[in-house]
Structure formats: structure tokens, C-alpha cells
């Protein structure tokens, strides 16, 4: 595989975050530049509604990219994030409806609307996400299937299952909890974004302040050395995929709460977005380098830019084009820089 010639990163280049480093981060300045351009070119860009919308968009893709980051840190890749995201929510709804049927309740009412307890749906959704992630992890770590094949298989299987479970019809989600996650705003900040930031803080604490998190970097930096140190690397790889699954499920909760519906083809191609964000956020595809904090900044930058393009009336297809090109340029620059450093 092309990813085999890994760049040898210094083991333990754990990037500690600080306000000082944040201020020097080019991503932050890029975000400010986009916001300034947006404010100058459109009177709507800085309205509270648009800011809230941008942050809502950030939340879903940001959560996906956090999961992607945790997997990329260990030197693997997770292509199944978007499929897992949708699958988890669909399983959440379907299983809850089945539980309702067992209890003699009818939670799937007319027009495929779900009117059961949202709490149960969300719980099952997250459990499903973690399960899918852990299965991916077991396949990759213990059964030694290449991670992109394993997750490509999961991606296809789950997309197929999504259609089977929904019969191709969308489920509409009703309930105050969904409204709360999707619509409510605290001081201009939507709940979904708060969920994203909380997840970010937990993940940030995990990778920078705990031993287990540090081992993600160690595995990504030099897996063989880490293994010979006596660390059971396989467990941490499973853990990384589990985190990715959980983040995908959370992204699903945030996204579907906002749309008030879930259907099988939702979020097609979001895996590309998640990879692009992680890479723009400085996460190395070879593993061992990157910070969830910068992935967060990259997701804000991404959402702010796409929002601006939307306001300018640029069609979605140009937006998709931008995502692809941004990915090529970001990875291209980092690999050219690496070559220069190596010389």
C-alpha cells in the first residue's frame, strides 16, 4: 500500500494545546479571514441565525472528523463514519419501535413518524455506533484486515442495511428532545455545537492527559516499537475505532435531530469531508501526528467556507468540488513539505 512508507515521526510528539499555540494557528486566522470576507460581501453572514446555522453544520461534520482523528492518530483510517452515522440512528429508531411493540405501544405512527421516547433512541443509537466501531476495530486489530478494506466493507454493508431497515422510506423524528438538540440555542450557540464541543473537550483530555490517549500517538508513530514496549496495541486500536463509532453516532443524533428525519442515503460522501477536515486540521494520514483541537478549528473553517459559498449562491456540486480540491491541496502541501524537510 502507498501508506506503507510511513514518515518516521518522533515518538511522543504529543501536541499539547495552549492558548498561545491557538493564537499562532494559521487555521484560526483563516477562519477570521473567511468571516471577514463573509461579513463584507453579505449582510446576512453575521446574523445570529446564520451563525447558529454554521455552528450546527459544524457540529455534525466536526463530530465525524473527531472520530476520524482518533482513528488516524493510530495510523488507520475509517471510511465507514458516514454510513455508521446513519445506520446507528436507523437502528436506534427501529429497535426502539420494536421495544415499543413488545410493550404494547405504537411508537411508529402515521406517515412513518416516530413518536416514542427520544432518550431511548439516542441511547441505542450511541450503543450501535460503538458496536460498529468496535467490530471495525476487531477486524483491523485482531483479524489484521487492512483498515480501509474493513471500513469500506462496513460502509457498503451498512448502506445496504440502511435501505433494508427503512424500506427506502425516511423516518420522521418527533419529540421535544430532538427539537432541543436540533433547534434550541443558548446565547447564540446551538445545542448541537455544545455537544460537539463537549465531545471535543473529552477527547482532547483523553489524548493529551491520559496514558491511554498518549498510546494512540505512540502506536501511530511507531507501532512495532510500541508493541515491543509491552503495550497491547490491538486494544488501543479497537478503542480508537470504538471512539470513532461513538462520535459517528453522536453526529447522527445531532444531524437527524436537526433534519427531524433520517433516511438511508443521508450523508453520502461525508467520509470524504471528515477525512478532509482531519487532514486540513493537521492530522497525519501516516499516524501519530495531530490534535483534535485543530480538527475542530478545521471543521469550523470548513463549515464557515461552505456556508459562505452557499450564501454566494454557489451550487452544492461546486461545494463538493471544493471539498475534493481542498483535500488534494491540503494533503499535497503536507506531503511536499514533508519531502522538503526530509531532504
Amino acid at each position, binding site marked *: *500500500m*502507498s*501508506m*506503507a*512508507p510511513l514518515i518516521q515521526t518522533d515518538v511522543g510528539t504529543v501536541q499539547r494545546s495552549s492558548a498561545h499555540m491557538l493564537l499562532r494557528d494559521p487555521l484560526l486566522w483563516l477562519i477570521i479571514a473567511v468571516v471577514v470576507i463573509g461579513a463584507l460581501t453579505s449582510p446576512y453572514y453575521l446574523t445570529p441565525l446564520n451563525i447558529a446555522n454554521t455552528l450546527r453544520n459544524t457540529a455534525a461534520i466536526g463530530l465525524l472528523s473527531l472520530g476520524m482523528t482518533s482513528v488516524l492518530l493510530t*495510523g*488507520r*483510517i475509517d471510511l465507514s463514519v458516514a454510513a455508521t452515522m446513519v445506520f446507528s440512528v436507523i437502528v436506534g429508531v427501529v429497535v426502539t419501535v420494536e421495544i415499543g411493540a413488545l410493550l404494547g405501544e405504537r411508537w411508529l405512527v402515521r406517515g412513518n413518524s416516530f413518536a416514542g421516547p427520544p432518550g431511548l433512541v439516542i441511547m441505542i443509537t450511541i450503543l450501535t455506533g460503538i458496536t460498529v466501531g468496535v467490530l471495525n476495530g476487531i*477486524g*483491523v486489530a485482531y*483479524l*489484521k*484486515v*487492512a*483498515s*480501509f*478494506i*474493513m471500513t*469500506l*466493507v*462496513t*460502509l*457498503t*454493508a451498512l*448502506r*445496504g*442495511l440502511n*435501505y*433494508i431497515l427503512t424500506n427506502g422510506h425516511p423516518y420522521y423524528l418527533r419529540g421535544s428532545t430532538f427539537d432541543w438538540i436540533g433547534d434550541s440555542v443558548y446565547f447564540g450557540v446551538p445545542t448541537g455545537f455544545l455537544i460537539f464541543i463537549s465531545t471535543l473537550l473529552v477527547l482532547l483530555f483523553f489524548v493529551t492527559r491520559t496514558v491511554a490517549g498518549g498510546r494512540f500517538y505512540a502506536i501511530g508513530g511507531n*507501532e512495532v516499537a510500541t508493541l515491543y514496549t509491552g503495550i497491547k496495541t490491538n486494544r488501543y486500536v479497537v478503542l480508537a475505532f470504538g471512539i470513532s463509532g461513538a462520535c459517528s453516532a453522536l453526529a447522527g443524533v445531532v444531524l437527524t435531530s436537526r433534519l427531524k428525519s433520517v433516511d438511508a442515503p443521508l450523508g*453520502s*460522501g461525508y467520509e*470524504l469531508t471528515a*477525512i*478532509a477536515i482531519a*487532514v486540513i486540521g493537521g492530522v497525519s*494520514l501516516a*499516524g501519530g501526528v495531530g490534535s483534535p483541537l485543530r480538527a475542530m478549528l478545521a471543521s469550523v473553517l470548513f463549515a464557515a467556507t461552505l456556508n459562505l459559498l452557499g450564501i454566494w449562491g454557489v*451550487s452544492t*456540486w*461546486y461545494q*463538493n*468540488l471544493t*471539498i*475534493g*480540491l481542498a*483535500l*488534494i491541496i491540503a*494533503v*499535497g502541501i503536507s*506531503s*511536499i513539505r*514533508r*519531502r522538503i524537510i526530509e531532504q
Partner: protein
Amino acid sequence: MSVAEEKFARRPVKSAASIEFWHRHVNSISLLGILILLLVAGRIISPSFLSAENLKVILLAVVGTSIIAFGMTMVVISGEIDLSVAGVAVLSSVVGAMFLDTGSAVLVVSVTLFVGLILGFLNGLLVVAIGIPSLIATLAMLGVARALANITSSGKAFYPDDIEGYLWLGRGDVLGVPVPILILIVTALLSIVLTQFTVFGRKLYATGGNVSAARLSGIRIWRVKIAVFTICGIAAALGGILESARLSYINPAAFPGMELRVLAVTVLGGAALAGGSGTIVGTVLASMIIGVINSLLNQMGVSIYLQQVVTALIILAVVLPGLRHRQVAK
């Protein structure tokens, strides 16, 4: 060099080559066994399964995937991967469709193939010249090509109904053999010759087997890699043409998930993702196996989405034994 010496010098080389040949094709023999078993199973389930008509249907259904898989197999042998094939197939078909008004099938087909060539070449450049991992470069290319296909066509489909030459590629026949199947046979033979019996083929296996050794023995790795990506681009465009011609429908949203089906066939055919192994014969057999399985599932009334799940599980079952892939755990 005396005759005796020459004999002595040549013999070990020859036998090494033939051992290598058998080693490479062992997998194909087991695939052939599986294929025969499946055909027998099909015959038991339905007496008409082995009829010429049904076999023709099975083959026609896998033509596009197989041809693209020949390109993919070469890319995988070289140690890279190409996830952009569906995007390349769609974009090249759509750009070709811009020339439908001219009424010239030759023009449409050559433009399509040319666009495929360019896109494949670009993939190669991204991987070789800039050094982007092929997984990412081609994933991005997939997104870009799909977006461009929709932008250039404004999301509208094209119907090449008036161009008989174009439709002939998908629906015509020569002496009772459908044209797509003929094209499949020709491309398979070309690919087999290219990979097994040419200098390029040797360089290809050498590159995938051990990049450093290949480089040190004077193979220009970048040339080999750009060549395989370009071939894969052309194969994707050709696959796109045949599918579009068969359906008489050029759709900018066509072939969703094609990359996985192609990859499935390639991996099932015995190409390890670490590079250096895999054969076109294996890929041919694997695509037949997938075709027969899909046909069986169809006859049993299994939905297309469940077939998708089954295909995914088959790939998993193939890669799970894992020994071949152990070295690419990443």
C-alpha cells in the same frame, strides 16, 4: 558461451519463472473450483441456469465491473489503489456525451476514452509527483470527478438513442456473441498479455513486490505507476461506455459504490493490497463468481440491497483469512 553452458545458465531461470507462474495462479485454480461449484448449485436450483441465454445475461451484467477490475488489478499489483473509478467512468461518459449532437459514435467514444486517460494520468501524477497516498488522492478524485460530472451536465442525464454505433457497443452482436462480451474477452486477453508476457508486466510485479529492490534494479517506479493509473482510467472509461450503451442512458449519478464492487472482484481474484501479487485470470474468475452469486440471489428473490450486504460479507470472508494481507495491517 558453449551450448552446454548456455543450457545450464538458462534452465534454473526458466524453472524459477515457471514456479513463479504457478505460485501466482494457484489462487485461480481454487477460484475455478468455486465457480464450478456455484454453477452446479445454480443448475440444481434451476434447470435453466446453465442455458446459453442465462449465461449471457450473467456475463453481460459483469462486463463493466470486470473491465474496470482489470485496470484496478494492475494498480493493486503495483501496490497502489484507485478508488476513483466510478467518478472517472461517470465524468468521462458525461464529457463524451457532450459530443452526442455530432452523431458520431467514434468521436463520442474516443473523447470518453481520452477523458478517462487524462483522469487516470492525473491520479498517477498526484500519487507519484506530489506524493499523496493513492487512497486519498483517488478518493478526492472520486469526489471531484463526480462533482464535475454533475456540473458539466447540470445534473441532467443524456440519452444516446440516436447513435447506433454507440448503442451497438452495448447491445449489438457479432455472429451471435454480444459485443460487450467480445470486448470483455479482448480486454482480458490484452491485460493478460500485458501483465504476464511483457517487460512492463515484470516491472509491474517487481514494483509492487519490493519497491526499493525494483528501484535499485533500475526500474523507473514513477513510470510504472503513472502507466497503471492511466490504464485504470481508460478501463474505467471503457466500462462506463459499455454500461451506458447497454442502458442507453448516460447518467451523472451512475455507478454508486462501483469502486467497492471493482475492488471486491480484484481482491477476490487474489490481488493482495500490499502489491506484487494478483492476476488478471484471477480477476476474470472472481468477477464470474460475483456474477453467478448475484444471479443466484436474484433468482432467489433477494433484494439488491441485501445483495450489497452479501457482496460486502464475501469480500470480508476473502480477506479475513488474512495471511496474505498480514503485512498491510495498517
